[in-house]
Protein backbone atom coordinates (compact mmCIF):
# COMPACT_ATOMS: atom_id res chain seq x y z
CA UNK A 1 0.00 0.00 0.00
CA UNK A 2 1.51 3.24 -1.13
CA UNK A 3 0.43 6.84 -1.34
CA UNK A 4 2.03 8.18 -4.49
CA UNK A 5 2.25 11.61 -6.05
CA UNK A 6 2.73 10.67 -9.64
CA UNK A 7 2.03 11.50 -13.28
CA UNK A 8 -0.14 10.29 -16.12
CA UNK A 9 1.88 8.50 -18.81
CA UNK A 10 -0.93 8.20 -21.35
CA UNK A 11 -4.69 8.52 -21.55
CA UNK A 12 -6.52 7.28 -24.63
CA UNK A 13 -10.08 6.61 -25.66
CA UNK A 14 -10.29 2.91 -26.56
CA UNK A 15 -14.00 2.75 -27.37
CA UNK A 16 -16.64 5.50 -27.34
CA UNK A 17 -16.79 6.72 -23.71
CA UNK A 18 -14.13 4.28 -22.45
CA UNK A 19 -10.59 5.40 -21.66
CA UNK A 20 -7.38 3.63 -20.78
CA UNK A 21 -5.05 5.56 -18.50
CA UNK A 22 -1.48 4.55 -17.79
CA UNK A 23 0.01 6.01 -14.63
CA UNK A 24 3.62 5.93 -13.43
CA UNK A 25 3.58 3.56 -10.43
CA UNK A 26 6.88 2.29 -9.01
CA UNK A 27 6.70 -1.19 -7.44
CA UNK A 28 3.17 -1.87 -8.67
CA UNK A 29 4.20 -4.95 -10.67
CA UNK A 30 5.45 -6.48 -7.41
CA UNK A 31 2.77 -5.37 -4.97
CA UNK A 32 -0.49 -5.59 -6.96
CA UNK A 33 -2.69 -8.67 -6.83
CA UNK A 34 -5.47 -9.52 -9.28
CA UNK A 35 -8.73 -7.91 -8.16
CA UNK A 36 -7.19 -5.05 -6.22
CA UNK A 37 -7.97 -1.39 -6.82
CA UNK A 38 -6.54 2.09 -6.42
CA UNK A 39 -7.99 5.31 -5.05
CA UNK A 40 -7.19 7.87 -7.72
CA UNK A 41 -7.02 11.60 -7.12
CA UNK A 42 -7.95 13.19 -10.38
CA UNK A 43 -6.05 16.39 -9.73
CA UNK A 44 -4.35 18.01 -6.78
CA UNK A 45 -6.92 20.77 -6.52
CA UNK A 46 -10.70 20.58 -6.23
CA UNK A 47 -13.14 19.64 -7.63
CA UNK A 48 -13.76 16.84 -7.16
CA UNK A 49 -13.21 16.53 -3.43
CA UNK A 50 -12.93 12.78 -3.08
CA UNK A 51 -10.71 10.24 -4.77
CA UNK A 52 -12.31 7.73 -7.11
CA UNK A 53 -11.85 3.97 -6.86
CA UNK A 54 -10.68 2.12 -9.99
CA UNK A 55 -9.95 -1.53 -10.53
CA UNK A 56 -6.41 -2.27 -11.66
CA UNK A 57 -6.44 -3.47 -15.28
CA UNK A 58 -2.80 -4.42 -15.40
CA UNK A 59 0.69 -3.38 -14.40
CA UNK A 60 3.90 -3.47 -16.39
CA UNK A 61 7.01 -1.73 -17.65
CA UNK A 62 7.48 0.57 -20.63
CA UNK A 63 10.71 1.93 -22.11
CA UNK A 64 11.95 5.22 -20.67
CA UNK A 65 12.21 8.35 -22.82
CA UNK A 66 15.92 7.83 -23.32
CA UNK A 67 18.02 4.68 -23.40
CA UNK A 68 20.12 5.45 -20.38
CA UNK A 69 17.10 5.57 -18.07
CA UNK A 70 15.53 2.49 -16.48
CA UNK A 71 12.14 1.37 -17.83
CA UNK A 72 9.05 3.02 -16.36
CA UNK A 73 6.81 0.90 -14.15
CA UNK A 74 3.13 1.62 -14.63
CA UNK A 75 -0.39 0.72 -13.58
CA UNK A 76 -3.25 0.83 -16.08
CA UNK A 77 -6.85 1.62 -15.29
CA UNK A 78 -9.78 1.67 -17.65
CA UNK A 79 -12.69 3.96 -16.96
CA UNK A 80 -16.02 4.94 -18.43
CA UNK A 81 -16.98 8.59 -18.40
CA UNK A 82 -20.09 8.79 -16.21
CA UNK A 83 -19.74 11.87 -13.98
CA UNK A 84 -17.82 14.99 -13.03
CA UNK A 85 -14.68 13.14 -11.86
CA UNK A 86 -14.31 10.98 -14.95
CA UNK A 87 -15.08 13.98 -17.14
CA UNK A 88 -12.03 15.74 -15.73
CA UNK A 89 -10.04 12.53 -16.13
CA UNK A 90 -10.72 12.22 -19.84
CA UNK A 91 -9.05 15.60 -20.35
CA UNK A 92 -5.84 14.67 -18.52
CA UNK A 93 -2.75 14.68 -20.70
CA UNK A 94 0.60 12.97 -20.42
CA UNK A 95 2.48 14.52 -17.50
CA UNK A 96 -0.66 15.54 -15.57
CA UNK A 97 -0.04 15.43 -11.82
CA UNK A 98 -2.25 12.95 -10.00
CA UNK A 99 -2.21 10.93 -6.78
CA UNK A 100 -2.58 7.22 -6.34
CA UNK A 101 -3.37 5.31 -3.16
CA UNK A 102 -3.04 1.55 -3.39
CA UNK A 103 -3.09 -1.21 -4.26
CA UNK A 104 -6.06 -1.73 -1.96
CA UNK A 105 -8.50 -4.43 -0.95
CA UNK A 106 -8.59 -8.18 -1.14
CA UNK A 107 -8.30 -9.69 -4.59
CA UNK A 108 -9.29 -12.99 -6.20
CA UNK A 109 -8.26 -16.42 -4.92
CA UNK A 110 -7.00 -18.60 -7.76
CA UNK A 111 -8.25 -21.96 -6.43
CA UNK A 112 -7.47 -25.38 -7.86
CA UNK A 113 -5.46 -25.06 -11.14
CA UNK A 114 -6.99 -28.28 -12.49
CA UNK A 115 -10.40 -26.62 -12.65
CA UNK A 116 -11.53 -24.59 -15.60
CA UNK A 117 -11.65 -20.87 -14.87
CA UNK A 118 -14.60 -18.97 -16.25
CA UNK A 119 -14.42 -15.19 -16.12
CA UNK A 120 -17.67 -13.29 -16.58
CA UNK A 121 -17.41 -9.60 -17.36
CA UNK A 122 -20.13 -7.04 -17.92
CA UNK A 123 -19.03 -3.80 -19.61
CA UNK A 124 -16.50 -1.89 -17.55
CA UNK A 125 -16.65 -4.80 -15.07
CA UNK A 126 -14.16 -6.57 -17.28
CA UNK A 127 -11.32 -4.48 -15.87
CA UNK A 128 -10.18 -6.45 -12.78
CA UNK A 129 -10.43 -9.74 -14.69
CA UNK A 130 -7.44 -9.06 -16.94
CA UNK A 131 -4.74 -9.39 -14.29
CA UNK A 132 -6.58 -12.43 -12.98
CA UNK A 133 -6.49 -13.99 -16.46
CA UNK A 134 -2.77 -13.21 -16.69
CA UNK A 135 -2.17 -15.07 -13.45
CA UNK A 136 -4.37 -18.05 -14.35
CA UNK A 137 -3.48 -18.85 -17.97
CA UNK A 138 -0.20 -20.59 -17.19
CA UNK A 139 -1.77 -23.34 -15.12
CA UNK A 140 -5.44 -23.45 -16.04
CA UNK A 141 -7.81 -23.32 -18.93
CA UNK A 142 -9.38 -19.86 -18.90
CA UNK A 143 -12.55 -18.75 -20.67
CA UNK A 144 -13.88 -15.21 -20.78
CA UNK A 145 -17.56 -14.51 -21.24
CA UNK A 146 -17.89 -10.84 -22.02
CA UNK A 147 -21.20 -9.04 -22.22
CA UNK A 148 -22.32 -5.51 -22.96
CA UNK A 149 -25.31 -3.52 -24.08
CA UNK A 150 -23.79 -2.79 -27.46
CA UNK A 151 -20.49 -3.33 -29.32
CA UNK A 152 -18.98 -0.16 -27.79
CA UNK A 153 -19.11 -1.85 -24.38
CA UNK A 154 -16.95 -4.75 -25.54
CA UNK A 155 -13.46 -3.62 -24.62
CA UNK A 156 -9.98 -5.19 -24.58
CA UNK A 157 -11.22 -8.64 -25.59
CA UNK A 158 -8.38 -9.09 -28.07
CA UNK A 159 -5.91 -8.53 -25.23
CA UNK A 160 -7.44 -11.46 -23.36
CA UNK A 161 -7.17 -13.52 -26.53
CA UNK A 162 -3.48 -12.72 -26.79
CA UNK A 163 -3.03 -14.23 -23.34
CA UNK A 164 -4.51 -17.46 -24.66
CA UNK A 165 -7.96 -16.99 -23.15
CA UNK A 166 -10.89 -18.40 -25.08
CA UNK A 167 -13.38 -15.53 -25.38
CA UNK A 168 -17.14 -15.45 -25.95
CA UNK A 169 -18.78 -12.11 -26.69
CA UNK A 170 -22.44 -11.24 -26.32
CA UNK A 171 -24.31 -7.95 -26.70
CA UNK A 172 -27.89 -7.14 -25.80
CA UNK A 173 -28.53 -5.54 -29.19
CA UNK A 174 -26.65 -8.18 -31.13
CA UNK A 175 -24.22 -5.64 -32.62
CA UNK A 176 -21.28 -7.88 -31.74
CA UNK A 177 -21.12 -11.59 -30.93
CA UNK A 178 -24.13 -13.51 -29.73
CA UNK A 179 -27.30 -11.54 -29.08
CA UNK A 180 -28.49 -11.60 -25.48
CA UNK A 181 -27.21 -11.43 -21.96
CA UNK A 182 -23.87 -12.82 -20.89
CA UNK A 183 -25.71 -15.00 -18.37
CA UNK A 184 -27.25 -16.92 -21.27
CA UNK A 185 -23.75 -17.72 -22.55
CA UNK A 186 -22.80 -18.81 -19.04
CA UNK A 187 -25.81 -21.16 -18.83
CA UNK A 188 -24.82 -22.74 -22.14
CA UNK A 189 -21.26 -23.30 -20.91
CA UNK A 190 -22.38 -24.73 -17.57
CA UNK A 191 -24.79 -27.11 -19.30
CA UNK A 192 -21.68 -29.10 -20.22
CA UNK A 193 -21.08 -29.61 -16.50
CA UNK A 194 -17.46 -28.49 -16.33
CA UNK A 195 -15.52 -28.65 -13.08
CA UNK A 196 -15.00 -24.93 -12.80
CA UNK A 197 -14.56 -21.85 -10.68
CA UNK A 198 -16.26 -18.65 -11.76
CA UNK A 199 -15.07 -15.07 -11.32
CA UNK A 200 -17.43 -12.24 -12.16
CA UNK A 201 -17.49 -8.47 -12.23
CA UNK A 202 -20.13 -6.22 -13.69
CA UNK A 203 -23.40 -4.49 -12.85
CA UNK A 204 -25.26 -5.74 -9.76
CA UNK A 205 -28.21 -7.28 -11.65
CA UNK A 206 -25.74 -9.31 -13.73
CA UNK A 207 -23.81 -10.44 -10.65
CA UNK A 208 -27.04 -11.39 -8.94
CA UNK A 209 -28.07 -13.51 -11.94
CA UNK A 210 -24.62 -15.12 -12.13
CA UNK A 211 -24.82 -15.91 -8.42
CA UNK A 212 -28.15 -17.71 -8.81
CA UNK A 213 -26.89 -19.68 -11.83
CA UNK A 214 -23.78 -20.75 -9.91
CA UNK A 215 -25.85 -21.74 -6.89
CA UNK A 216 -28.06 -23.90 -9.12
CA UNK A 217 -25.00 -25.62 -10.59
CA UNK A 218 -23.19 -25.78 -7.22
CA UNK A 219 -20.19 -23.98 -8.69
CA UNK A 220 -18.12 -21.60 -6.53
CA UNK A 221 -18.27 -17.95 -7.53
CA UNK A 222 -16.14 -14.96 -6.60
CA UNK A 223 -17.54 -11.53 -7.39
CA UNK A 224 -15.85 -8.17 -7.45
CA UNK A 225 -18.23 -5.45 -6.24
CA UNK A 226 -18.53 -1.78 -6.96
CA UNK A 227 -19.52 0.83 -4.38
CA UNK A 228 -19.36 4.53 -3.65
CA UNK A 229 -16.27 5.09 -1.52
CA UNK A 230 -14.74 8.01 0.33
CA UNK A 231 -11.56 6.57 1.84
CA UNK A 232 -10.83 3.13 0.34
CA UNK A 233 -9.09 1.93 3.51
CA UNK A 234 -11.96 0.90 5.80
CA UNK A 235 -12.26 4.10 7.81
CA UNK A 236 -15.36 5.86 6.47
CA UNK A 237 -17.62 2.78 6.26
CA UNK A 238 -19.43 4.42 3.37
CA UNK A 239 -18.97 1.52 0.93
CA UNK A 240 -20.62 -1.36 2.80
CA UNK A 241 -22.77 -4.09 1.24
CA UNK A 242 -25.28 -6.32 2.97
CA UNK A 243 -23.78 -9.60 4.05
CA UNK A 244 -25.52 -12.97 3.87
CA UNK A 245 -28.07 -13.34 6.65
CA UNK A 246 -28.73 -9.62 6.83
CA UNK A 247 -32.06 -8.71 8.39
CA UNK A 248 -33.44 -5.41 9.58
CA UNK A 249 -33.36 -6.66 13.16
CA UNK A 250 -29.92 -8.16 12.81
CA UNK A 251 -28.08 -6.15 10.17
CA UNK A 252 -24.80 -7.28 8.68
CA UNK A 253 -22.68 -4.95 6.60
CA UNK A 254 -19.39 -5.80 4.92
CA UNK A 255 -16.87 -3.19 3.91
CA UNK A 256 -16.37 -3.34 0.13
CA UNK A 257 -12.96 -1.68 0.24
CA UNK A 258 -11.40 -3.72 3.03
CA UNK A 259 -13.21 -7.06 3.26
CA UNK A 260 -13.69 -6.94 -0.53
CA UNK A 261 -13.89 -5.81 -3.24
CA UNK A 262 -13.77 -9.51 -4.11
CA UNK A 263 -16.19 -11.67 -2.13
CA UNK A 264 -17.21 -15.30 -2.29
CA UNK A 265 -20.72 -14.82 -3.57
CA UNK A 266 -22.42 -16.83 -0.81
CA UNK A 267 -21.24 -14.22 1.72
CA UNK A 268 -23.36 -11.48 0.10
CA UNK A 269 -27.05 -10.87 0.69
CA UNK A 270 -28.40 -10.85 -2.87
CA UNK A 271 -31.95 -10.15 -1.76
CA UNK A 272 -31.67 -6.42 -1.90
CA UNK A 273 -27.91 -6.46 -2.08
CA UNK A 274 -26.67 -2.95 -2.73
CA UNK A 275 -27.90 0.23 -4.22
CA UNK A 276 -27.84 -0.31 -7.94
CA UNK A 277 -26.07 2.93 -8.46
CA UNK A 278 -24.01 3.89 -11.40
CA UNK A 279 -20.77 4.89 -9.78
CA UNK A 280 -17.78 6.57 -11.22
CA UNK A 281 -15.55 3.60 -11.30
CA UNK A 282 -13.65 1.79 -13.90
CA UNK A 283 -14.01 -1.80 -13.08
CA UNK A 284 -15.59 -3.19 -10.08
CA UNK A 285 -15.32 -1.31 -6.94
Amino acid at each position, binding site marked *: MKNLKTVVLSNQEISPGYFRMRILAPDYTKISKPGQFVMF*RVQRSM*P*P*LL*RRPFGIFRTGFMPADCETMPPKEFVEIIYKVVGSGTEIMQGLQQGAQVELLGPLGRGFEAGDPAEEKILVGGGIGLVPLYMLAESLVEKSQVRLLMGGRTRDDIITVTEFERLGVETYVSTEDGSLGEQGLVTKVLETRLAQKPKATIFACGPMPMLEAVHHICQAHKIPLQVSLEALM*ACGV*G*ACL*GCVVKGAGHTEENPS*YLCTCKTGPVFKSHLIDWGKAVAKEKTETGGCK
Partner: protein
Amino acid sequence: MIKRREKVARPDLSVEVCGIKMKNPVMPASGTFGYGEEYAPYLDLNNLGAIVTKGLSLNPKAGNPTPRICETVSGMLNAIGLQNVGIDVFLKHKMPFLESFNAPVIVNFFGNTLEEYAEVAARLDAIPGVAGLEMNISCPNVKHGGIVFGTDPQSATDVISAVRKRTKKPVIVKLTPNVTDIRVMAKAAEDAGADALSLINTITGMSVDIRKRKPRLANTIGGLSGPAIRPIAVRLTHQVVQAVKIPVIGIGGIACAEDALEFLIVGATAVQVGTANFVDPTAMEKIVSGLEDFCIEQGIADIKELIGTLEV
Protein backbone atom coordinates in the same frame (compact mmCIF):
# COMPACT_ATOMS: atom_id res chain seq x y z
CA MET B 1 1.15 45.23 10.16
CA ILE B 2 2.66 41.99 11.37
CA LYS B 3 5.78 42.59 13.38
CA ARG B 4 8.48 40.20 12.28
CA ARG B 5 10.81 38.88 14.86
CA GLU B 6 14.08 37.08 14.54
CA LYS B 7 14.10 33.72 12.87
CA VAL B 8 12.66 30.97 15.01
CA ALA B 9 14.59 27.74 14.63
CA ARG B 10 11.93 25.29 15.66
CA PRO B 11 8.69 26.69 16.98
CA ASP B 12 6.91 25.06 19.90
CA LEU B 13 3.70 23.59 18.52
CA SER B 14 2.59 21.92 21.75
CA VAL B 15 -0.75 22.73 23.31
CA GLU B 16 -2.70 21.51 26.28
CA VAL B 17 -6.45 20.93 26.13
CA CYS B 18 -8.08 20.37 29.54
CA GLY B 19 -5.01 18.62 30.88
CA ILE B 20 -4.34 16.56 27.74
CA LYS B 21 -0.85 17.44 26.57
CA MET B 22 -0.43 17.38 22.79
CA LYS B 23 2.81 17.83 20.86
CA ASN B 24 0.86 19.79 18.26
CA PRO B 25 -2.74 20.98 17.91
CA VAL B 26 -3.72 18.55 15.13
CA MET B 27 -5.85 15.44 15.60
CA PRO B 28 -8.34 13.49 13.51
CA ALA B 29 -12.08 14.12 13.75
CA SER B 30 -14.00 11.13 15.03
CA GLY B 31 -15.41 8.88 12.34
CA THR B 32 -12.90 9.84 9.68
CA PHE B 33 -9.94 7.92 11.04
CA GLY B 34 -11.44 4.58 12.02
CA TYR B 35 -9.63 3.14 15.03
CA GLY B 36 -6.27 4.47 13.83
CA GLU B 37 -5.09 1.18 12.36
CA GLU B 38 -6.70 1.91 8.98
CA TYR B 39 -4.38 4.86 8.41
CA ALA B 40 -1.27 3.57 10.18
CA PRO B 41 0.27 2.36 6.88
CA TYR B 42 0.20 5.91 5.50
CA LEU B 43 1.22 8.19 8.32
CA ASP B 44 3.01 7.98 11.66
CA LEU B 45 0.39 8.22 14.39
CA ASN B 46 3.15 9.42 16.73
CA ASN B 47 3.17 12.68 14.76
CA LEU B 48 -0.39 13.54 15.77
CA GLY B 49 -1.36 15.83 18.63
CA ALA B 50 -3.86 13.18 19.70
CA ILE B 51 -5.74 10.23 18.23
CA VAL B 52 -9.54 10.45 18.26
CA THR B 53 -11.41 7.18 17.72
CA LYS B 54 -14.54 6.44 15.80
CA GLY B 55 -17.64 6.95 17.94
CA LEU B 56 -18.27 4.01 20.27
CA SER B 57 -21.45 2.82 21.92
CA LEU B 58 -22.23 0.34 24.67
CA ASN B 59 -23.29 -2.28 22.14
CA PRO B 60 -21.97 -2.77 18.59
CA LYS B 61 -23.93 -0.84 15.98
CA ALA B 62 -24.45 -2.04 12.40
CA GLY B 63 -25.13 1.35 10.85
CA ASN B 64 -27.50 2.58 8.17
CA PRO B 65 -28.57 1.09 4.84
CA THR B 66 -26.75 2.14 1.67
CA PRO B 67 -26.07 4.44 -0.09
CA ARG B 68 -24.44 6.07 2.92
CA ILE B 69 -22.33 8.75 1.26
CA CYS B 70 -22.46 11.14 -1.63
CA GLU B 71 -20.19 13.88 -2.82
CA THR B 72 -21.49 17.45 -3.01
CA VAL B 73 -19.80 20.71 -4.00
CA SER B 74 -16.56 20.85 -1.96
CA GLY B 75 -18.03 18.46 0.53
CA MET B 76 -19.70 15.16 1.21
CA LEU B 77 -22.88 14.01 2.85
CA ASN B 78 -22.81 10.95 5.06
CA ALA B 79 -25.30 8.90 6.96
CA ILE B 80 -23.12 6.04 8.15
CA GLY B 81 -25.29 5.55 11.21
CA LEU B 82 -22.47 5.43 13.75
CA GLN B 83 -21.48 1.88 12.80
CA ASN B 84 -18.97 0.68 15.39
CA VAL B 85 -17.66 -2.44 17.09
CA GLY B 86 -18.95 -1.52 20.55
CA ILE B 87 -16.95 -0.52 23.61
CA ASP B 88 -15.98 -4.07 24.69
CA VAL B 89 -14.47 -5.10 21.35
CA PHE B 90 -12.79 -1.71 21.11
CA LEU B 91 -11.11 -2.02 24.49
CA LYS B 92 -10.02 -5.58 23.85
CA HIS B 93 -8.92 -5.44 20.21
CA LYS B 94 -8.39 -1.84 19.15
CA MET B 95 -7.13 -0.02 22.23
CA PRO B 96 -3.87 -1.99 22.64
CA PHE B 97 -2.78 -0.91 19.16
CA LEU B 98 -3.54 2.75 19.91
CA GLU B 99 -1.65 2.55 23.19
CA SER B 100 1.51 1.61 21.31
CA PHE B 101 1.82 5.21 20.09
CA ASN B 102 2.87 8.20 22.12
CA ALA B 103 -0.06 10.39 21.08
CA PRO B 104 -2.81 10.68 23.70
CA VAL B 105 -5.94 8.65 22.88
CA ILE B 106 -9.28 10.43 23.02
CA VAL B 107 -12.23 8.07 22.82
CA ASN B 108 -15.34 9.42 21.16
CA PHE B 109 -18.58 7.86 22.43
CA PHE B 110 -22.34 8.18 22.29
CA GLY B 111 -25.50 6.54 23.56
CA ASN B 112 -29.17 6.15 22.85
CA THR B 113 -30.08 6.95 26.44
CA LEU B 114 -28.59 8.90 29.30
CA GLU B 115 -27.82 5.61 31.07
CA GLU B 116 -25.87 4.30 28.10
CA TYR B 117 -23.72 7.41 27.99
CA ALA B 118 -23.00 7.09 31.70
CA GLU B 119 -22.18 3.40 31.44
CA VAL B 120 -19.71 3.86 28.57
CA ALA B 121 -18.08 6.77 30.41
CA ALA B 122 -17.64 4.61 33.52
CA ARG B 123 -15.98 1.84 31.52
CA LEU B 124 -13.62 4.25 29.80
CA ASP B 125 -12.77 5.85 33.13
CA ALA B 126 -11.17 2.57 34.22
CA ILE B 127 -8.78 2.42 31.24
CA PRO B 128 -5.43 4.08 32.00
CA GLY B 129 -4.54 4.52 28.31
CA VAL B 130 -7.57 6.72 27.67
CA ALA B 131 -6.44 10.35 27.94
CA GLY B 132 -9.87 11.86 27.48
CA LEU B 133 -13.45 11.30 26.45
CA GLU B 134 -15.21 13.09 23.63
CA MET B 135 -18.99 12.97 23.97
CA ASN B 136 -21.00 13.03 20.76
CA ILE B 137 -24.30 14.58 21.88
CA SER B 138 -25.76 14.80 18.36
CA CYS B 139 -27.78 11.62 18.97
CA PRO B 140 -31.49 11.26 19.61
CA ASN B 141 -32.60 10.30 23.12
CA VAL B 142 -34.73 7.23 22.41
CA LYS B 143 -36.43 7.47 25.81
CA HIS B 144 -37.56 11.04 25.25
CA GLY B 145 -39.25 11.09 21.88
CA GLY B 146 -35.96 11.06 20.01
CA ILE B 147 -35.03 14.63 20.86
CA VAL B 148 -31.37 15.14 20.04
CA PHE B 149 -29.42 15.63 23.30
CA GLY B 150 -27.30 18.36 21.80
CA THR B 151 -30.17 20.51 20.56
CA ASP B 152 -31.93 20.93 23.90
CA PRO B 153 -30.07 22.67 26.75
CA GLN B 154 -31.81 20.63 29.48
CA SER B 155 -31.18 17.27 27.79
CA ALA B 156 -27.56 18.24 27.21
CA THR B 157 -27.15 19.32 30.83
CA ASP B 158 -28.64 16.05 32.08
CA VAL B 159 -26.51 13.77 29.93
CA ILE B 160 -23.28 15.68 30.51
CA SER B 161 -23.90 15.75 34.28
CA ALA B 162 -24.54 12.02 34.24
CA VAL B 163 -21.26 11.39 32.42
CA ARG B 164 -19.42 13.85 34.66
CA LYS B 165 -20.42 11.80 37.73
CA ARG B 166 -18.94 8.64 36.25
CA THR B 167 -15.50 9.80 35.16
CA LYS B 168 -12.60 11.85 36.40
CA LYS B 169 -11.02 11.94 32.99
CA PRO B 170 -11.31 15.09 30.88
CA VAL B 171 -14.66 15.26 29.10
CA ILE B 172 -14.81 17.06 25.75
CA VAL B 173 -18.34 17.72 24.54
CA LYS B 174 -18.75 17.76 20.76
CA LEU B 175 -21.40 20.25 19.74
CA THR B 176 -23.82 20.03 16.85
CA PRO B 177 -24.21 23.13 14.67
CA ASN B 178 -27.85 22.25 14.00
CA VAL B 179 -29.23 24.63 16.62
CA THR B 180 -30.50 28.20 16.61
CA ASP B 181 -27.83 29.57 18.92
CA ILE B 182 -24.81 27.40 19.60
CA ARG B 183 -23.69 29.65 22.48
CA VAL B 184 -26.67 28.50 24.55
CA MET B 185 -25.58 24.87 24.13
CA ALA B 186 -21.94 25.74 24.75
CA LYS B 187 -22.78 27.42 28.05
CA ALA B 188 -25.07 24.57 29.07
CA ALA B 189 -22.22 22.12 28.45
CA GLU B 190 -19.75 24.23 30.39
CA ASP B 191 -22.12 24.57 33.34
CA ALA B 192 -22.82 20.82 33.32
CA GLY B 193 -19.14 20.08 33.79
CA ALA B 194 -17.59 19.78 30.35
CA ASP B 195 -13.82 20.33 30.45
CA ALA B 196 -13.63 21.37 26.80
CA LEU B 197 -15.82 21.70 23.73
CA SER B 198 -15.23 20.50 20.20
CA LEU B 199 -17.15 21.90 17.27
CA ILE B 200 -18.65 21.54 14.80
CA ASN B 201 -20.17 18.18 14.10
CA THR B 202 -21.61 17.86 10.57
CA ILE B 203 -24.35 20.16 9.33
CA THR B 204 -27.49 18.29 8.33
CA GLY B 205 -28.06 18.31 4.62
CA MET B 206 -29.74 16.52 1.75
CA SER B 207 -29.16 15.84 -1.92
CA VAL B 208 -31.58 14.54 -4.55
CA ASP B 209 -31.07 12.32 -7.58
CA ILE B 210 -33.24 14.27 -10.00
CA ARG B 211 -33.71 11.42 -12.48
CA LYS B 212 -34.83 8.89 -9.90
CA ARG B 213 -36.49 11.61 -7.80
CA LYS B 214 -35.02 9.97 -4.78
CA PRO B 215 -32.72 11.17 -2.03
CA ARG B 216 -29.09 10.31 -2.75
CA LEU B 217 -28.73 8.83 0.74
CA ALA B 218 -30.81 5.87 1.91
CA ASN B 219 -31.31 7.76 5.17
CA THR B 220 -32.63 10.78 3.16
CA ILE B 221 -30.82 13.24 5.44
CA GLY B 222 -27.11 13.17 6.18
CA GLY B 223 -24.33 15.23 7.67
CA LEU B 224 -22.40 17.62 5.47
CA SER B 225 -18.64 17.82 5.95
CA GLY B 226 -15.64 19.02 3.98
CA PRO B 227 -14.31 22.43 2.89
CA ALA B 228 -17.86 23.61 2.08
CA ILE B 229 -18.68 23.98 5.78
CA ARG B 230 -15.49 25.69 6.93
CA PRO B 231 -16.66 29.31 7.02
CA ILE B 232 -19.67 28.23 9.09
CA ALA B 233 -17.42 26.30 11.45
CA VAL B 234 -15.03 29.22 11.84
CA ARG B 235 -17.93 31.54 12.65
CA LEU B 236 -19.38 29.14 15.22
CA THR B 237 -15.98 28.57 16.82
CA HIS B 238 -15.52 32.31 17.04
CA GLN B 239 -18.90 32.70 18.76
CA VAL B 240 -18.37 29.84 21.19
CA VAL B 241 -14.91 31.02 22.19
CA GLN B 242 -16.48 34.34 23.21
CA ALA B 243 -19.19 32.59 25.22
CA VAL B 244 -17.25 30.12 27.39
CA LYS B 245 -14.09 29.91 29.48
CA ILE B 246 -13.21 26.28 28.74
CA PRO B 247 -10.94 25.41 25.78
CA VAL B 248 -12.41 24.84 22.35
CA ILE B 249 -11.30 22.43 19.62
CA GLY B 250 -12.18 23.69 16.15
CA ILE B 251 -13.51 21.29 13.51
CA GLY B 252 -15.01 21.76 10.08
CA GLY B 253 -13.56 21.46 6.61
CA ILE B 254 -9.91 21.80 7.57
CA ALA B 255 -7.75 20.58 4.69
CA CYS B 256 -4.49 22.52 5.05
CA ALA B 257 -2.46 24.51 7.58
CA GLU B 258 -4.03 27.80 6.50
CA ASP B 259 -7.46 26.41 7.31
CA ALA B 260 -6.29 25.22 10.73
CA LEU B 261 -4.77 28.63 11.43
CA GLU B 262 -8.13 30.35 10.95
CA PHE B 263 -9.53 28.30 13.82
CA LEU B 264 -6.51 28.89 16.06
CA ILE B 265 -6.59 32.63 15.43
CA VAL B 266 -10.28 32.88 16.35
CA GLY B 267 -9.42 31.10 19.59
CA ALA B 268 -9.49 27.33 19.19
CA THR B 269 -6.73 25.65 21.22
CA ALA B 270 -6.52 22.73 18.82
CA VAL B 271 -8.17 21.45 15.66
CA GLN B 272 -9.58 18.24 14.26
CA VAL B 273 -9.22 17.16 10.64
CA GLY B 274 -11.98 15.04 9.13
CA THR B 275 -12.94 14.63 5.50
CA ALA B 276 -9.47 15.73 4.38
CA ASN B 277 -8.10 12.41 5.68
CA PHE B 278 -10.13 10.61 3.00
CA VAL B 279 -8.76 12.87 0.29
CA ASP B 280 -5.17 12.64 1.47
CA PRO B 281 -4.20 10.18 4.21
CA THR B 282 -1.17 12.32 5.01
CA ALA B 283 -3.21 15.54 5.34
CA MET B 284 -2.63 15.86 9.10
CA GLU B 285 1.14 15.49 8.83
CA LYS B 286 1.13 18.14 6.12
CA ILE B 287 -0.93 20.45 8.32
CA VAL B 288 1.52 20.03 11.22
CA SER B 289 4.49 20.88 9.02
CA GLY B 290 2.54 23.75 7.49
CA LEU B 291 1.88 25.17 10.96
CA GLU B 292 5.56 24.95 11.72
CA ASP B 293 6.43 26.75 8.47
CA PHE B 294 3.91 29.48 9.24
CA CYS B 295 5.34 30.04 12.71
CA ILE B 296 8.85 30.27 11.29
CA GLU B 297 7.69 32.67 8.58
CA GLN B 298 5.86 34.84 11.12
CA GLY B 299 8.59 34.66 13.75
CA ILE B 300 6.30 32.91 16.23
CA ALA B 301 8.27 30.87 18.78
CA ASP B 302 5.24 29.22 20.38
CA ILE B 303 2.00 28.50 18.58
CA LYS B 304 0.08 29.26 21.78
CA GLU B 305 0.95 32.92 21.15
CA LEU B 306 -1.26 32.75 18.10
CA ILE B 307 -4.38 31.34 19.74
CA GLY B 308 -7.19 33.86 20.04
CA THR B 309 -5.29 36.73 18.42
CA LEU B 310 -8.09 37.72 16.07
CA GLU B 311 -8.25 41.47 15.61
CA VAL B 312 -11.70 42.83 14.91
